[in-house]
C-alpha cells in the first residue's frame, strides 16, 4: 500500500497581486481562507507571493509569482479516485481564477507526492524496477538521472501538446516525537508530476485546463502502474 502525502495542482499565468476584490471574486470556491504574505521563498524579486490557507490548514492556494499552486495535504492510499477528486477541485479553483482575471496560462500540472516506503522497508525492489529500461504508452524513457521523464504527445484544445511525466525519488527525514523522545523518521518519497512541457507556443484557456484535469487521472493510473503495480 502506498499513501499520498500531498497533492498539488499548478498553473502558470501572469502574476496576481493580493487584493480584497480578487479574494471576493473567489467566493463560493475559496471561503474563509486566511491570507498570508510570503517572503524570501526564492521567487524573483518584484513578483507577488502570497497565499490563502484553509481554516483546517489542509489546503493552500499559493500565488508564487507567475505560478499558482493548489496544495492539499492528504495521507490516504494512492488511486485514480483520489486524483479524480483533486483534479475536479483544481478545475473549480483554477477555472474561477482564469475566468475572473481573463488570463490564459502557459503551463498546467498535477503533481502528487507519494510515500514510497518507511525506513523499515527499503524499497530495493522498487529501485531495481525504476532503473530498468521502461516504456509508457509506447514511449521509451527520455531521461533516467535521479528523476525520470517520459514526454508523451497528447491533444488539448485540439492542439498537440507534449506532456511531461516526471518521477523523482528522494529520502525525507522527519523529526517525530514517540513516547516523549524525539526520533528521526526516514521516508522514501516519490514526487510525481504530470505537466505540459515548457513551450512559448502553448496557451491554455479555462476549457483547456479542464480538459487537462479530466485527462490527468487516467494518465496517473498508468504512470503509477510503472512503479507500484504488483
Amino acid at each position, binding site marked *: 500500500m502506498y499513501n499520498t502525502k500531498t497533492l*498539488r495542482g*499548478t498553473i*502558470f*499565468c*501572469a*502574476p*496576481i*497581486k493580493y487584493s480584497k476584490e480578487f479574494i471576493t471574486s473567489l467566493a463560493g470556491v475559496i471561503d474563509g481562507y486566511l491570507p498570508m504574505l510570503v517572503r524570501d*521563498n*526564492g*521567487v*524573483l*524579486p*518584484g*513578483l*507577488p507571493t502570497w497565499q490563502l490557507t484553509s481554516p483546517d490548514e489542509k489546503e493552500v492556494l499559493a500565488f*508564487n*509569482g*507567475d*505560478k499558482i*499552486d493548489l496544495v492539499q495535504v492528504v495521507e490516504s492510499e494512492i488511486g485514480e479516485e483520489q486524483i479524480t477528486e483533486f483534479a475536479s477541485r483544481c478545475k473549480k479553483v483554477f477555472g474561477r481564477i482564469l475566468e475572473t*482575471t*481573463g*488570463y*490564459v496560462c*502557459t*503551463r498546467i*500540472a498535477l*503533481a502528487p507526492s507519494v510515500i514510497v516506503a518507511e525506513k523499515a522497508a527499503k524499497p530495493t525492489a522498487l529501485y531495481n524496477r525504476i532503473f530498468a529500461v521502461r516504456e509508457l504508452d509506447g514511449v521509451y524513457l527520455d*531521461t533516467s538521472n535521479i*528523476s525520470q*521523464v517520459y514526454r508523451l504527445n497528447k491533444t488539448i484544445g485540439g492542439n498537440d501538446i507534449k506532456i*511531461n511525466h*516526471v518521477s*523523482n525519488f528522494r529520502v525525507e527525514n522527519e523529526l517525530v516525537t514517540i513516547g516523549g523522545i524525539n526520533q528521526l523518521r526516514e521516508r522514501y518519497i516519490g*514526487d510525481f*508530476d504530470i*505537466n505540459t512541457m*515548457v513551450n*512559448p507556443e502553448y496557451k491554455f484557456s479555462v476549457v483547456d485546463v479542464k480538459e487537462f484535469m479530466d485527462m490527468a487521472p487516467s494518465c496517473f493510473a498508468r504512470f503509477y502502474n510503472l512503479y507500484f503495480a504488483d
Partner: protein
Amino acid sequence: MVDTLAKTSFYQQLVDIQDLSRRLSKPLMSSIESLNKQMSSLNLDVYTEALKSYTSLADLYRVPDYLDTSVFIRHDVEDGGFIVDTPSMSSASQDENILTIAENTRANDVNKANQEYLEYLRSRSEEIATAIMRTEFEDGMDNDVTLLIRSFARRNKSATYNWLDELYSTHLNLSSVLQGILRTLAMITERGDENFLLPMVVASLRSNSSAEQEAAIMVIEEWRTKECLEALCSIKNYSSEMIADYAEMVTKELKEELG
C-alpha cells in the same frame, strides 16, 4: 658639400649639383616607384568605405564612455566595407544551452530556472542598454531590440520582466534607455503583464522628459486597464502641450471604454 661648391667655379658647381641630384634622385625615384606598386596592390576602396562608415556611424550613435564600441564593428567581406552592429544583433541562440528548463513544476526548480535566466540577462544589461540607445523606435514597428527582448520573454517572461525593471531602475539618468524600455513594453506585453510593469510606466509619466512621457502614454494606450487610467488621471503636469493633449485623448478613450 656647400663649402666645396663655394670654393669651385660656377661651371663646376653646376656639374656638381647635377651629379648630386642624379645620385639622390635614383633611390628617391626607386622608393616612389616601390610605394606606387604597393599602393596599387591595395584595395583603397575598402579603407575609404571603412573610414566613411565608421565616421558617419560614430556621429550617428553617441557611444557611452564605459563601452568598448569596437566589439560591435565587423568587416563585411562581400561589400568590402565595415558594418557597425547594434549589440542586439549578436545572436541569442548561441546561448541556447544556458537556459535550464524545469521538467517538473516544483517551486524550487522553477525558481532556480528563473534565477538562472535572470543572471544571464543581467550579464547582457549594458550591451542591451546601449542597443536601446542606438535604436530608433517607430510607433508600432518591431526592431532588433523589441524582437530580441520578445524572444527573452518567450523563454522566460518572469525573469525578463524582472530584468527590465532592474534595467529601468539602473538607467534612471538616461532618458533614451527608459523611453526604449517603455516602447519595447508597448510592443511585447500581453494581458496581465501590466500588474508587474505598471510602476515603470507611472515613474515615466512623472518624468520631465516629454519623449519619456509620450512613451509611457503609448504603453497605457496599449494596456488599457483601470489601473492605467488611474495612473493617467493622477498626473497633473505634462512637459508639453502636445503630450497633455495626447494624455487627454487617451484618458477620454479609456473612461468611455472602462465606464
